[in-house]
């Protein structure tokens, strides 16, 4: 059974210090957010989203603007800007209106920007 987590009032989905947070299911945000967790599912946001370093998302990440510092397996779809920083890993696909992939990032998959 899929579990959907909605974060409306918090800015971050994070774990208390020293613990790792794991989420099984989809995550939805309607504010700017930072994900510091292992997510076995999709993440959907209507605003800006940062996937922090050492975070892993197994599914698809959709948001307005996305900064990837961690790892996403299922692809990224940004309605605005997408930025893959050095050390980040993205698989499957990258869709954006604007894109920056820094040297040292890892990406392989379908690329569609501005279309």
């Amino acid at each position, binding site marked *: 059974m899929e579990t959907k987590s909605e974060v409306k009032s918090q*800015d*971050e989905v994070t774990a208390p210090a020293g613990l790792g947070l794991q989420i099984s299911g989809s995550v939805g945000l309607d504010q*700017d*957010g*930072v994900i510091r967790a292992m997510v076995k599912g999709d993440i959907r946001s209507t605003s*800006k*989203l*940062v996937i922090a370093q050492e975070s892993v998302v197994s599914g698809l990440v959709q948001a307005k*603007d*996305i*900064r990837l510092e961690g790892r996403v397996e299922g692809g990224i779809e940004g309605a605005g*800007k*997408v*930025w893959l920083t*050095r050390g980040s890993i993205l698989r499957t696909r*990258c869709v*954006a*209106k*604007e*894109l*920056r*992939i*820094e*040297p*040292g*990032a*890892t*990406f*392989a*998959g*379908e*690329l*569609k*920007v*501005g*279309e």
Partner: protein
Amino acid sequence: MVAEEAQSSTCLECGRHLELGHRVIEGEHLGNLSLEGELVIGSKGNFGGAKARAARIVLQGRASGFLEAAEWLRVEGQSKIRSGAKGMKLEIQVGASLEAAELLHFQSGVIEGELRCATIRFDGPLRVGPHGKVVAEKIVFSELTVDSGGRISGLGEVRELEAKPPTEAGVISTLEPQ
């Protein structure tokens, strides 16, 4: 005094004939070329030899043969390359277009016009400007910047450049959580 376009020399290493000046192709040119200077393939020109090498190549027309530019290859017209190209830098100006059937392999690229090809590989950075468009089956790069308004589609792959220092940040501003 020998005119510049008539000056030539012989490569001490391979013995190949080198032209020291520049060359402009306005019609059909058969035969290979090896220039120290600039090669201009005019809008009605077609390079039909097997290979053309030059320090700089301005492409306004077509090339059936392979093009190699030690410094840059600049596309200024509605151009086609049948046999591929390689060099240090590929530039496609605003309003210009390049259609390539074979592999294009450059150190870096700035695409302000349109590029259509099968496979394109950049060992360094690729930038697609606001009026730029890249359509390819496969696009390989070590870093990529697509400005707002620019378009790119195909299968992308990052290949890390060995021992390359990090570049400055691109046009997209850092996303800071509020």
